[in-house]
Each structure stands twice: as C-alpha cells, then as structure tokens.
C-alpha cells in the first residue's frame, strides 16, 4: 500500500509565547520494510531555525525554533510511504525455539540486542512482568508462537481506556489496573519480553484510517499509534501490535523506534511564555493512495 500521512499538532495559548523549541519525530524513514517517497515537517509560524539529525536509534529528528511571538503553534508533517514491503510473517528466525538473550549469552557484536534488553526510563524489568509473560513461553515454544500468544493475551487481558492512565503512569500500575492506551499496551509487552531476556523496542507510528472494504476499523486510528518491535536476530525486527492483536504489517507506518515512549515522542519541546493555559489539538489522517 501507499499511504499519505498527514499529522497536525496545534497548541493554542492564552498569552503570547515568545519562543518555542521543538524536537519532532514525525519523519518516516526506510525502515521495517517500508519505503519513504516524500516527507516534510512545517510549522506555523515558520521556524527561525531548523535542523535534522539522525538520532542514536537511527530515527530522523528535527529541531525547530520558532521566535516569532505566537498564541497558536501548528506543527504539520506530511509524508508519502510505500508499506508493501513491511513483513507479514516471522520467517525462519521466528520458528526457532525462543531463548533468553541475557547479557551473559548475548553476542556483544549485536549491540542492539543488548540495548533493547535493558531497563529504560519508562520500562523496568520485573519478576511480575516475567511471571505474566511466562505462560506464553514454555520451553521449546518458537519465538513466533510465544510472541503471538503474549500479544493475544495482552489484547484480551487489558482494556483500551483513554481515561485510565496518564503519560507518567507507571508500568506496575498499568499491570494492576489492566487498562490503558496503545502506549501502555506496548510498554506492557516490551517489559514482559525484556523480563524474559528477549530484546524488544517501542515503535511510534501510524495506522491506516479507513479500512479496506469488509475489514474492521482498527483501534488507534486518527491518532499516533504505538506497537512493539521484536528482535529476530541478525539485525531483523518484526512489528507486533498488542492493541489490535496482529502483526504491524502493510497497514502500519513506522515513524520512530526507541526503548520506550520517552525516546521517541512525536513532538516534545519547551516554550517561553507568561501564558498559563494551553489547549492541544491533534489530528492524524492516513489515506491510501
């Protein structure tokens, strides 16, 4: 599929903002089998300075500074992505029995595997998470079966509830409430896998808005979405979406990958202002071309 992604973030303030500094991760790249045909990010008011860099995790990130005083800031990204090459199956690597990728056994040459097995700011490994994951990973079970089983269980055990959690809700609390949004679903899965010694990353991106005829609309459209990357070894990854209990195949667009949400927020920034209130409006449209 070829998708046109349009992502708009708008802030309205009750007093002028003198300066805004933004770091944007909404520049899809040629990763996870997808091919980016075109991409751009613009701001209104326009930025006085902007610069792109490739971050530690390989994502394209833009730094933008808006110096014109403003009571409204709009950040718009638009891109054209061919997703037909995104993997739809685990392949041979996934059919091997799963095994812990803990420090002692890891091949240090494969730094990614170690990087994505360790604790990160929002995801800490725990016995509780390992216990949750274990029923899916009996001895000898293939990596693919284990992952799909865990994915199905999270989908069944957790309720999608936009009111239940905040951006800073701890993973332990999410485990207790069994509620949350796609970010929480992804963190639960990442944490469960890492607690068993399996490298997993957090993927931020988009979902197709209108389903093909006869297919259901997915949860998490119209907004930025998040799912989990599973490491298959040899530098290969595959996306799994616990919110919708399926592989993150050609109906998905990857924007950025990190250890957890805090590595790859679509937009973060600082403002210098005497304003006291802000109002945030976000819209996402992913249209098949």
């Amino acid at each position, binding site marked *: 599929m070829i998708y046109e992604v349009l992502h708009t973030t708008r802030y309205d303030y009750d007093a002028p903002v003198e300066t805004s500094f933004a770091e944007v991760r909404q520049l899809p790249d040629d990763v996870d089998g997808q091919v980016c045909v075109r991409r751009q990010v613009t701001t209104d008011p326009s930025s006085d300075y902007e610069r792109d860099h490739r971050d530690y995790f390989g994502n394209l990130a833009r730094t933008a500074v808006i110096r014109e005083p403003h009571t409204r800031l709009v950040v718009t990204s638009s891109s054209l992505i061919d997703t037909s090459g995104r993997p739809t199956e685990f392949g041979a690597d996934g059919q091997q029995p799963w095994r812990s990728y803990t*420090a002692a056994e890891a091949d240090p040459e494969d730094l990614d595997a170690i990087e994505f097995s360790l604790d990160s700011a929002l995801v800490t490994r725990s016995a509780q998470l390992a216990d949750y994951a274990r029923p899916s990973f009996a001895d000898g079970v293939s990596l693919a079966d284990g992952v799909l089983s865990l994915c199905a269980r999270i989908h069944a055990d957790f309720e999608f509830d936009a009111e239940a959690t905040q951006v800073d809700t701890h993973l332990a609390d999410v485990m207790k409430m069994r509620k949350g949004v796609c970010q929480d679903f992804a963190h639960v899965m990442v944490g469960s896998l890492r607690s068993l010694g399996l490298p997993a990353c957090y993927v931020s991106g988009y979902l197709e808005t209108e389903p093909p005829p006869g297919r259901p609309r997915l949860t998490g459209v119209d907004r930025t979405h998040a799912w989990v990357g599973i490491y298959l070894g040899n530098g290969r990854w595959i996306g799994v979406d616990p919110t919708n209990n399926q592989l993150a195949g050609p109906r998905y667009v990857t924007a950025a990958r990190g250890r957890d949400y805090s590595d790859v927020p679509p937009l973060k920034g600082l403002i210098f202002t005497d304003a006291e209130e802000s109002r945030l409006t976000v819209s996402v449209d992913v249209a098949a071309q």
Partner: protein
Amino acid sequence: MTALPTTDPIAGYHPLGDGHDEMMNAGGTIREHWSELMDAYRTLGAGELTRRQGEIQRLLEQDGVTYNVGGDDGRPDRPWTLDPIPFVLPNEEWSAIERGMIQRAELLDLVLTDLYGERRLLRSGIVPPEMILSDPQFFRACDRITLPGDKQLVVFGIDIARAADGSWLALGHRAQAPSGAAYALENRRVLSRVFPHIFRQTGVQRLAPFVQALRSALLAAAPIGVEDPSIVILSPGSLSETAFEHASIAAQLGYPLVQGSDLELRRGRIGLRTVSGWVPVHVILRRVDAGFCDPLALRPDSTLGIPGLVDACRAGTVSVVNTLGSGILENAGLASLMSSLSRHLLGSDLLLDSVPSWWCGEPVGRSHVLANLGSLVVRPLSRVSLEYSIDTARISTAELDELRRRIEAHPDQWVGQQRLTPGSTPVLNADGVEPRPAVLRSFAVAGGGSYIALHGGLGRTASGEADAPITNRTGASSKDIWVLGSESQSQFEFWPSGDAMAAHASTDALPARAAEHLFWLGRYAERAEATVRLIRTVTARCDEFVNTATGPGPASLTVVLESLTRVTGTYPGFVGDDAAALFADPTGELFSLVVDERRPGTVAHAVRHLFDALDVVRDRLSVDTWLVVGSLQRELERLERDGVVRDAVVRDGDVDDAMTSVLSEMLQGLLSLSGLANESMVRDLGWQFMEAGRRIERAIHVATLVGTTLGTQRSAPVESLVVESVLIAGESIITSRRRYRSRAFASTTIELLLADAGNPRSLQFQIDRLADSLALIGTDRADGPTATAALLGELTRLLASTNFVHLADIDEVGHRPGLESFVGTVRAKLAAISNAIALESFNRLHWQHAMVGPIDHRQSLGATESTVGSSV
C-alpha cells in the same frame, strides 16, 4: 584551642599503626624531603605555627573561599579550611604519579571517543555493554558529538591515595566537570603568603602555568574556522557547592561566568544575551552536569540549561568542554577495567594502578562482592546516582542485608572496591601535629598533543579518626601539595603562550543578568548606607532627648521618626495606629529596622540582597571586596545573634551603645565597599550599571527625606532641629554650617539637598551622574532614543525649570505644596527610569515550560479531531 604541649610542634609525632606515613619512616626518622621544612617549622615553634594557622583562615575568609554544603535553604556556606603544613612530594615521585595520571587521561580520552562513536569497545566485549548502556550518564542524545582537535577529554581530574606499601593507587576519575583546581590555586596563594620565607626556600613547583594551559586548551577546542573564539564559563549559579571555584576560575581565566539563562540559541548558534544584544559564544567551559545543560534534548525539568545546546554541539557551531557525554568516564565499573583497557588500547601496562574493584554485573565480580560484604566499599555504578560510597565495614547487619538485596536485584548497578586506609601525613590540630590519612586530587588538561598536568593539587585529610571517609561534605580539611622543584623549573617552553590577547574579545560583552545584579548591587549598597545613616541620626537624637518629655526636642524627634518609616517604607511603624507607644519607646522598632532581615526596608534586608547580588557578580569584583563583605556579615550576625544585647537595649528603653557601635562599623564597611567600587573597578559597562543603580537609589532617598520632613512647616525651634537632623542624615551638615553659618532653614536645606549641583549628596548631583552613566550605557543602541533616555530628559527638564526657592513656600495651612508635588513627581520618574532600564537592558526571559505532550491516542475514540486543555 588548648595550648600546645611543647614549643616543638612535632615532638610527639607518631605514625598511625603500620601504614605509610609521609613524613616519618617506620624507624621514626623524618624523611629526607621533609627535613628542611620540618626544621623551619621547629624554628617557628608551635605557638607561631598556631598563630599562622589563624592567619590562613583569616586570608581564606577574606577571599570569600567557601564550600556550600547542602543546598538552597539559608546560607550553607562553610568556610574552607587549609592546614598550615603542606603535603610534600619529591620531584621524582611526583613525575611518576604525573606519568600515570597522563596515561590515564590518554586512555580515557580513547574510551570517550569510542563510546560516543564506533562503540568498538562494547561490540568487542572489552567493556561489557551493560556497564555503559545502563549508566544514566551515557547520554544517547550526545552520540557522535565531537570536539575539534585530537582530544575529546579536555579537563581531567583524578583522586589518588597511598597504599600501606607506599605505592600510589587511583581511587576515581573526574571528567564531568572536574572541580578543585581553583581551590588548589587559592590554597597555594594563601600558604605562600603566610610562609613566604619557607615557601621560597623550599623551591616548590609552580601551579600558575596550569591556568595558561587550560586557557590554551579552551582556545584549541573552538569550532573550526573560528579565529578569535569567545569563551564563557557556564555555572549553575551561586548556590552551587563549588560556587567559589567557578567564580575564581572565571576571574583567573578572564572569561565571563554565565548561567544557562544568559545564553541563547539563535539561528543554530549559541550566544550570550548581553545588554547590547546577542553576541556569539564559541567555547563553553561547563561546570553544570550534562543532564541539566539542555532541557530540550536532555532533562526537560532543568532550568539551568540552554534549549538547543545539544543540537548546536551536533552542528559543531559551539564546543562544550568537557563534552556533554564525558560523565560516563566517572562510571565506577571502568576502574576495574583500566589495566585491560591499557593493554588493549595503548599496548602498554598501566603505570598507576586502580584500587582493586569488582563490577557486580559480572558473575565473578558479583559473587566476590556479595561474599565480602562487610569488608568492601560499595559504590553505585553511576556518579549521577545521589548515593555515595558505602563503607560496608561501618554499617549495621540490617543495612548490610538491605544492601545485599539491592545488589542482587540490580547487580549491574553496583561496584565493590577494596577498602583502603590512605597513608597518613602530618596535620596541625588543637593538640599539636598529628598524622591523618590523606587523599590527593590533581588535574590534567589536553595540550601539546598529550596532556599537561598540574604540578600539585588539592590534598584532603580526614577530620578525625583514621578510617573516616574523606570528602568535603563531611568536613575534611584541605592541604596544599608541594612538589619540590628540580633544576628544570623553567618549564615555560611547554606551556603554549601568546594567546592571552585573544582572550579579551569575550570579556567586553556584559551579560544582561550580570548587568541586572550590578544595578541592584548599586541600589542595595546605597539603600543600606542611607538607612544606616538615617537610623544613626535618629538614635543620636533619641539619646539627646531621652529625658525630655515635651518641648521642641521630642517634637522634632517625632517628625524624624515618622520620616524614617516613610523613607524606608516600613509601614505602619511610626505612622501607624500604635505610633504613640513607639514614640514613648522607639528602641524595639529601631532595632528591628536594623536587624530584621525578612522585613523589606531594613538595613539587614538591604545587606542580604546586597550579598546575593555580590554572589552573582563575584567574578567581576576585586578580591578585597570579600574582606569588606565578611566584616559586614559578622557585624550583622553579632547584633542578630546577641539576644542579650537586644534585651538589654529594649529593657532600658535606652539606645544602647552596642547598636551605635554596630551602626558605625556597618557604615564603615559600606563606605569601604563604595570606595572599592570607585577605586578598584574598571569603568566598564558593568560599573555604569552599578553607578546608575546607586544614583537612582540616592536620588530617591534624598528627595523622600526632604519631602517627608519638610513638607509641613513647624514652629521655628522644632523646624530648626528637624533641619539639622535632615542635614546630618543627608551628610551635608558641615557644608551647611560653613555656608549658612549657624542657622539653617528649610529653604537653604532644600537648596543644598535638592538643587546644589556641587553637593555630592544632592538630588541634582545624582541626576547629573545618572545622566553620565546612562549616556555610556546607551551608546551601543542603534535604534534611536530609548524610553530610559526620554524619561531622563523629562527629569532633567523638571529640575532645570524648578525654582527651588519657591519650593519652601507654604500655603494657608502650613504645608509646602510645591515641595510635596515636586518630590512626588521626581520619585515617580525615578521609579519609571529604573523599570525602563530593566526592560531595555536586562532582557528578562519569560517562564520556561514544557510543551504539553501530544499523547493524542489518549483521547476519546471515534472522533476525527479531539482536544484537551491543560495547564502549561
């Protein structure tokens, strides 16, 4: 301090246990390299040594040397202490240490380069990846940032101690923002002043070339293509533990001391926000921990940083020294790898060994540490952790169990280190000269293709028992390190030179924040001085009329007391509902007006704010300033603390001599301060801001004093006394007597205090000087006349058009409406000028907030557009 037992200060010296002692060998003989020094100390005698110790403390205090313990509540400054006996090392021994230190710097430079570049050390497993990847000081946002030049590690600090067998061991590294060099330089300055003769005779290697080497290293770190780099020192502010060090280094290097809010990213470059606009900065010597340096790319809750700094580093438009990622080198696990790293990276053995240590992330290390809990020192892996080393020999069983659980839960976060009781060295204390374990910190900076070491450093000794931890926080005392000279004293050819001129470019620009504090320094210094004068005048009058119930004396006193409340703005005071009671016994209120720090308008309040402003602009002031400030602070503390004095004062209903003498002392201190400002500060832009503040304050004060005392006509005897008080408080009584002989009238007083351009205390004189300063401040402005200039013009015209003789005219009810309206207008204009200066020059930042995170998938389902409101 008890008397020393004998006059031979080292007669009773016995080394501790069986460890190594610096001065005395196992046989009880003084080592050769100490003998000359010890002979000199013997000649001085114990009494003289103790006296000089007092002299050392006095000098350190005068220089304002402090180490701030704790944080922001109150003033936790602790005076720095320095032992009169240096730590002595022969040249050959120091050279060996120095080679080991430089080798470690070379090694860590390669490690740093690799960790933020290829990461081969991690991929090859030479450094276990988890050791680095799980350290919060490994800043992924700083990946691939490099400095021009061949070294990524520019400033390096190392702690070393002597083991029982006499060999030296490295205890740890400092690479984030190594501190202590300025303290070492200060210790040297003081010790060489207190023992000039001994110092000269001993032939000690100099420290000063290190400052030049640091300057050259900073210049060399400038972005490629920048020929005349502008350099600043980034400090977290005057509440930092080592604020003295930051200001001192800035002053010695001659580069401005700035805070994050002084710097700003513009079009991809970092620049300084100065009173005359944005000027580029090319090199930042960082004294702020990396995480706090950029709230956009690093910790979003930091207000000490510069948003966009990391991006500017990536772009290579600015060089931050040490690099933002350098804190990773303080990782405690690396210590256990130094010898294998040396073999792998340098192909040679380590010259200076580490204290044996074990990283718990490795099964062998973990089991060793867990099996030996109770005899090891356990350290958190990362120095960013707020925890310090734990000496497991000194904690309870319950604490040991807890520690064991924590290590087992997160083994990769802990490192065990062999306990080491450092070798001892002689220290002078109350009971004579005694041995104390000592730890040394020294430094090296990149230069000449390798590293240049400080020939000495900062020694620290434990405050008490032999195995107590040695840190500044626990009250250890410091030592100067004397490396005895060899023939090759002329090592100047090693020090790159000739760059001193280039350094000047960056000193011209005045940071807006420094300007603001200099302005308020001027205002508060003048406010304190004027208030002291006024209270002193009032207390003298109180004494005079204390036994008089009625008559012109008490009546005039009432007028002056009311004016005191109005001039200082300390309402209700002598004009409130309880005024009658206060008139009967004004001492309590007068006392409060001196010492109540929390009450705006009091002397103590002004002095406190004066100190705060001084702290911020410390690097711009003469060292003698601290001499004056110290004595001012002591006077205030004496009065405040001495409750006995206060009770006595209040009980007697009499203004005690104590307060009078304190007021005189304080006045003297404040006069010295203004003397220093006039005689020892360059007339640069900063001075003009201070001068403008002083002139505005004095103008407001004198106008208000005249307006509130002479606004209403009194009977001739009362008015005569009031006029006299006003002239005394306005420091113009002598002039008045000479000019108007015996009698002064309201009209002549108004003339002398408001209109006389030749009287340095008059309103006209202040406005003239203010105009001079504002003209110089305003010269840099291209965009036409400023609001400040316009307001000043109005004020000047008002004074020129006023007929001061008529200001004394009275109306039918005995008021002087002309005077009251004139004073009202003048006060309003002055306040407006002060605000206009702030607006135009101080360039205040708006509040910094985080952008609300766009967690848009949190909003209700099915809507194509949704909104959330939130508090910024």
